[in-house]
């Protein structure tokens, strides 16, 4: 039987561990606040009815860019909460820009999903992932990016688990900076009223 002799292995392990440790410490020591102040990359996409929608159309609003896909279970779980938030806070200057990250081949599935769930926020198609790659290079879905009125990214987060919509709502209300935006639905504009709304793509501010 042979005895073991692993010199070359030990050297490789040592080099690799040192490299990993260096990169790890480098990553942790950078402030997360720096990241949150990034300018939001501009984009222009077609919505599910063929209308052109640009991020710059919503310059004076707090925008939640929500990346999702028809095949993504957690996305389906999160979207009803986004619809509720959109209905309640729309008049205070909040908009959800929902971007389908579905492949071009699945584009026919997007509108039926929106229709069956009676979502009323704008839904855009990013068929070649151009916008997804700019905001979310790891392509994790769902992915939310909260953009302030000044066009800076205030907060972003990948994935969704039940209950996390509470944190998201807090961030949106904080961004709106309005005492009125405390969670009470706007008078005369209940959620059920919005369900009858047929326009999938409300007009942008300009």
């Amino acid at each position, binding site marked *: *039987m*042979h*005895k*073991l*002799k*692993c*010199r*070359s*292995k030990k050297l*490789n*392990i040592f*080099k*690799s561990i040192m*490299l*990993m440790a260096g*990169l790890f410490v480098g*990553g*942790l020591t*950078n*402030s*997360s606040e720096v990241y*949150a*102040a*990034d*300018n*939001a*990359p501009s984009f222009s996409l*077609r919505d599910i009815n*063929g209308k*052109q929608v640009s991020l710059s159309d919503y310059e004076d609003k707090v925008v939640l860019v929500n990346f999702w896909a028809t*095949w993504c*279970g957690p996305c*389906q*779980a999160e979207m009803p909460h986004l*619809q509720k938030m959109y209905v309640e806070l729309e008049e205070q200057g909040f908009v959800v820009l929902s971007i389908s990250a579905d*492949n*071009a*081949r*699945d*584009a*026919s*599935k997007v*509108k*039926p999903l929106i229709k*069956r*769930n*009676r979502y009323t926020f704008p839904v855009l198609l990013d*068929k070649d*992932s*151009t916008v997804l*790659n700019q905001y979310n*290079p*790891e*392509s994790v879905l769902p992915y939310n990016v909260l953009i302030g009125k000044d066009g800076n990214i205030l*907060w972003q987060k990948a994935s969704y*688990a*039940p*209950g*996390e919509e509470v944190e998201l709502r807090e961030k949106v209300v904080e961004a709106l900076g309005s005492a009125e935006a405390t969670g009470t639905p706007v008078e005369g504009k209940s959620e059920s009223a919005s*369900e009858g709304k047929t326009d999938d793509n409300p007009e942008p501010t300009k």
Partner: protein
Amino acid sequence: MLNTVVLLGFLTIQDSQAQETQEDELDFLLATLQEDAPPPNLLYGMGIVSGATETKRWESRSRYRVSDRVEPGFESTHPRLHDYTEFVNRFYYKLNHAEKGWNSSVQVDQVTLGLNRYILDDRMYNSIDLLEPSLFSPLPNSFVRLEKANLTRNFANSKIEIGDMGGAFGRGIALNIRSNKIVDIDTSLRGVKYSGSIGNADFTALSGLSNRQQVSRDNPNIGLYQDVPHLINGIEVMLYGVGSATLGFHGVTATFGDVSLRNESGVRRYEEAIDATIVGADAELYGVAGLDWYFEGNVFQYYDDALNEGGEHETGYTGYVSASAYPGILVVLMEGKISKDSERINLYTSIDNWEVATPPSLEYERMITEDSSATVNSNDVIGGRIRVDVPIVPAVFTPYVAVSAFHDKDLEGLHFNIVPETIVHPVAGVQYTENDIVVLMNMGYRIDDRDSVAELDAGVDQGQDRLIHFDGEVGFPLFNHEALELNTSMWKFMWGDNPVPHNDFVTMQNAIVWRHGEDLDFIVYQDYTTNTQLQSVGNITDEVYLSGEVKYRPTPETSLRVLAGAYKAGIRCSGGQCRTLPGFNGVEVAYSSTF
């Protein structure tokens, strides 16, 4: 900043005012300072990047891979010679200048193998090589590559991209190149893309050489080789608001590189003859006869001998139609497809695990098998699917039924059958989401009946392939910030008669997730399969795999994940691209941070 100076002066001469007033003013001052403060990652200076913001992201995977192979002649108790370590790093750097309308990004990939050679008494017993000769690295166990680079400049009504980008026309039948990280495929076109709008018309023109990712993030990095650049040119014109319709026209040309000449410069493609062209048109009509319609037709022309098999398949075509209707509370989606010799366009690239074009498959891709992936990639198939959703309580409770049917006449490639097949696949499911409770369930039965063709089967009934499947996801809150999530999928596959016998098999994949607050998850995975075609072995028994994972998110921009145990190999499809993902046994530590 001028506001700030004025405010400071104002506050200085208000000494005599009440303390309460001063506090109010200080609050106002602080708020103003905060508003005036530039983003902390803003770049200063006089150069072209002045005023841009920067973002960096680092993803890391460290793995200890356990192998079951035993080196002959070594005692069974010694450390395993074929185990090795793998360190994969991916670094993104992004500059964004929103005011001037440009952004730029680069992605650098790096991989290092460790414990990958065993030398005893000057004899090499085991060597796991990172690189094949077509790729060079000064360190044989380490490789670094500038994987992606992109510069995008936005103008008022147009945009130009230089570097790595995706491209998709219509429903992806003629061109559909994009990163698909779910199955660890990240191919881009490296070149130029110009897109713009004039009135109600959009146009896109692109030209680039394919750039397949060299370093895999999730799959084993063994024997990496130089990818062959293929030249893709394309143009698309879209006309919006033509009555109630949108019309589109597109054309694509492809010049493929020879896989035997991997080190040849991709620039050579520009000198070579075109191997294939695709021209197509599409129309989307909104609310015509109460339905939303989509039509697309494409014609493929192959000039290359390998693509047209010596002139036997010089042309191909694909037609696709979808119609969605909303009668009462129902939502109905109908799709149809006919395709002949259009998958040939992927002949050269599927060797490298990516595809130029991926048309809609109409298959239930959440549950894919060797059999159904053959239909996805068929060169001679006609079929349709209808799905009816019944949103009893919209966005809360929606059951659905769907049925797809195909006639697949292709007998090559992944097909194991010797006669054409007729496929029927009903699926039913339900979606329930309310009060933080999530229930998603789907089940179906796929029957793949082999036709009777006397000249092919000599009068012997070839039987049926059958698949019965169920998948579900249930999530619900427990107490305080705790939540539980259960995921399961199981399927049983029964083969018909094949020239090469295959065994029927049962497969299960289960996971239990305990979410402790928003930042900490504990997960237990359990796989089971009797599929002998898979190249993986369980760590509990040969058929049973068990692993545990902890995910921790210390800050919104940082995540840490540790996985230990084993999971099985298997086919996974996403976006029309299927890949046989290898199994895993060992330990993985993953870290990602944006800063």
